[in-house]
């Protein structure tokens, strides 16, 4: 239901002109980090950082084959599903942590009330 951490990460990733350019480029064809660095007149290290941000936001995936790291748009289906499940799990975990506190509070209250009745 609530996945805005991921959305915020996407927006942060998209706030940079070079990164938007990289996405545009990858929309046309997959490319290696070396290709991208050359195309955007950047150092390899600089491009690695940009790709890292896009990868964190789930907008780009990379795969290393031999010595070449290839970048492509989006996540693989299964990775996307696993990422969604983890986000969903965190939401329910946060909810259930709160619910847990309420259940403990109600349980305590009943114990106290029970004692008071007996006394």
């Amino acid at each position, binding site marked *: *239901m*609530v*996945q*805005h951490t*991921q*959305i915020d990460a*996407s*927006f942060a990733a*998209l706030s940079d002109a070079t990164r*938007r350019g990289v*996405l*545009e480029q990858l*929309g046309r064809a997959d490319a290696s980090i070396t290709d991208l660095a050359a195309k955007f007149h950047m150092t390899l290290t600089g491009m690695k950082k940009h790709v890292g941000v896009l990868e964190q936001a789930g907008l780009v995936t990379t795969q290393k084959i031999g010595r070449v790291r290839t970048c492509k748009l989006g996540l693989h289906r*299964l990775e*996307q*599903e*696993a990422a*969604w*499940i*983890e986000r*969903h*799990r965190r*939401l*329910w*975990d*946060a*909810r*259930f*942590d*709160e*619910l*847990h*506190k*309420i*259940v*403990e509070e*109600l*349980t305590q209250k*009943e114990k106290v009330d029970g004692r008071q009745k007996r006394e």
Partner: protein
Amino acid sequence: MDARKESESTPLKNRTTVERKSERELVVTRTFNGSARLVFEAWTKPELFKRWWAPKSTGMSLLSCEMDVRAGGSYRLEFGRDASKPIAFFGRYVEVTAPSRLVWTNDESNEGAVTTVTFEEKGGKTLLVLHELHPSKEALDATMAGMEGAMPEQFEQLDELLLTLSV
């Protein structure tokens, strides 16, 4: 398709698991240290429900919560970050069996799931199982692709942005 994730950081904390059981089913589980009667109460009394459904860490807040907890009764939850643009979730209770079973529909989308929550008490603890049955594989896939139920406006903005980029 068994993408199970569990909390590993704090061993004392009860674990929350989420699992896609089949093409159409999603299951969430957690054990609570209390009776089924009390856990059930926290799901069916609005004043209690409000306190946990939209935890602060998610950045959302429950703006209103109406629940007519009986078979055929309706519920409506409105929440969001901005009171002028609430996101509503609504539907009907199909089955209400205290303190062991709750079933409701999710009618905010045409392809909404049916949610069943069971509360099973054992040795003073309660195992909660939340089961979502989606009308089709595509409906659950769409939910998991994040296109439904999340933050429609932000998705629209993101879609627009991605569209501009792909031209």
